[in-house]
């Protein structure tokens, strides 16, 4: 009897402990997040409904004028197109290139080929390079003077010179290619890990049944990696969408507006044109797209757990 009561007591104290308040553990984090995320976010949303400028940051009360300005601005359509092109081109080619490298490295590993580790390592190095340095490295690559290496290589092939960064019709493509160089590593890391989880026995069984490599890829490998592929694509969309560091030193959004993505437009509106209200309105649009992606990611992740 005595013993029994002891057990009950200790169980009770365990469950009480287990139900202890999470507040002390979370307080420091949420204090920081409140000050540096929540308050600024509310502020940005509030400011977007004013006509504030950098010299008059309070504005003159509630108005929709900033949003009207954004949507009436002829440049807005162009900015959305530039953003859409930059994101879709980057994400498609980051995925395709990352997938090809992941499959090639995996295939080479099963064949115990030399140079596999070297290739895998080199394909990932760009992940560790700061975005601003990538912007400058590609600006050097694209140089349009006599010393520009890409133009020199083109001349060896007998092609005429390309104004990679100063021709508005080419600059966006050049910027997107530099971004593919930057983001492929992230794709490759996830997809490579995904390829490793595909059931090797199933692949072998299919080979014995005479299935071709292409058939195995589309009927076993890709379906087996579905959730990794979706998470990878979503992460790449978010990363590309928020890219600022690489574009700033590469083109600064120019020439004209030819490489001005949404994030750059926020920056230009606020810190160059000093139009705080309009900049915040664009920032709110950016924010809503960010939130939509996070919801997508959260749902995907939960589906993965279940």
């Amino acid at each position, binding site marked *: 009897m005595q013993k029994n009561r002891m057990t009950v007591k200790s169980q009770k104290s365990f469950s009480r402990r*287990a139900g202890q308040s999470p507040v002390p553990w979370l307080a420091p984090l949420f204090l920081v997040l409140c000050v*540096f995320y929540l308050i600024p976010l509310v502020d940005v949303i509030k400011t977007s409904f004013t006509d504030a400028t950098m010299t008059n940051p309070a504005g003159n009360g509630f108005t929709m004028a900033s949003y009207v300005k954004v949507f009436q601005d002829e440049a807005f359509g162009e900015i959305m197109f530039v953003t859409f092109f930059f994101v879709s081109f980057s994400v498609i080619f980051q995925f395709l290139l990352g997938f090809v490298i992941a499959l090639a490295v995996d295939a*080479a590993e099963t064949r115990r080929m030399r140079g596999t580790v070297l290739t895998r390592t080199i*394909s990932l*190095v760009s*992940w560790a390079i700061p975005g601003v340095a990538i912007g400058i490295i590609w600006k050097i690559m694209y140089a349009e003077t006599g010393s520009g290496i890409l133009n020199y290589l083109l001349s060896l092939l007998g092609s005429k010179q390309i104004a990679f960064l100063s021709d508005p019709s080419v600059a966006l493509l050049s910027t997107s290619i530099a971004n593919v160089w930057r983001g492929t590593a992230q794709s490759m890391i996830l997809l490579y890990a995904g390829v490793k989880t595909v059931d090797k026995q199933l692949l072998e069984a299919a080979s014995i049944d005479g299935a071709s490599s292409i058939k195995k890829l589309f009927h076993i490998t890709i379906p087996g990696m579905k959730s990794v592929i979706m*998470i990878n694509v979503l992460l790449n969309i978010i990363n590309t969408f928020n890219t600022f560091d690489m574009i700033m030193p590469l083109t600064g959004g120019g020439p004209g507006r030819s490489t001005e993505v949404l994030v750059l437009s926020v920056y230009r509106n606020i810190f160059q044109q000093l139009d705080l209200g309009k900049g915040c309105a664009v920032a709110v649009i*950016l924010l809503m797209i*960010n939130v939509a992606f996070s919801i997508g990611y959260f749902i995907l992740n939960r589906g993965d757990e279940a």
Partner: protein
Amino acid sequence: MTGGKVKRRVSKGLLYLVFVLVIIFFLFPVLWTLSLSFKTVPELYKIPPALLPETLQMENYTYLVEQVHILRGVANSVIITAATIVGTMLIAVPASYAFSRIQFKGSRFLQFLILMFQMISPLVIVIPLYRYFADIGLLNTTIGLIVVYIAISAPFQVWFLKSFFDTIPKELDEAAYIDGCSRLQVVTKILLPTIIPGVFSGVLLVFISSWSQFIVPYILMDTPSKMPLACLLVNLQGKLNQITTHYLAAASILTILPTVVLFLCLQKYIVSALTTGAVKG
């Protein structure tokens, strides 16, 4: 030769072709920049351009050290990054423990909120912070940068470290409670030592992202002598003119060296860290 042998050779050949193309595409821009960083001005304008510099003269680097005081930028980056790592871990470890072990109402919602913060462009929050900091004198200060860096690094780390806490069986906690350990003792004596590899990987990720951080110092820091390296690099680009590509190349190499060397040395940890959560098994 049998058909199978030919097929195997062809597929091996194709794989090597892919390897060579991949190596050229990813390595060449870095090697070209490295080569430029050793070139003199006449070499810079030589047509056709030479693949390799004539000598490994260090004058471009000496110029950066003496005229641009680039080592100060390196020191700034080291200080900011180190402080960010410590601060981030101090707030992210306890929070990730709570999300993994304490059941409470709203836990899931808070986790979603944190995930959302992680996906928001830092530019959005830096806009108002610029004005707040100007008001309270934190603009152009190192401490101002550090606290924002911490706020930006923390959300991802909470998710990341939680995934390590989640891998430890709850029976381990329960056994310790029955032995009379307090909650704090369970965390510090049992759980933390178990997730040290996770914390180590987390530190690596914070290091690389903080070293690369650009948008925050670009807006909140105007004083070149206090700028971290990534920001100084763009500042330098704005000041130099066309004939100074060799300086810019050298500065880029200095900027990427720490993170690239770290990556090459600790590749295994980093790759497994990056796949945590996204891939099961």
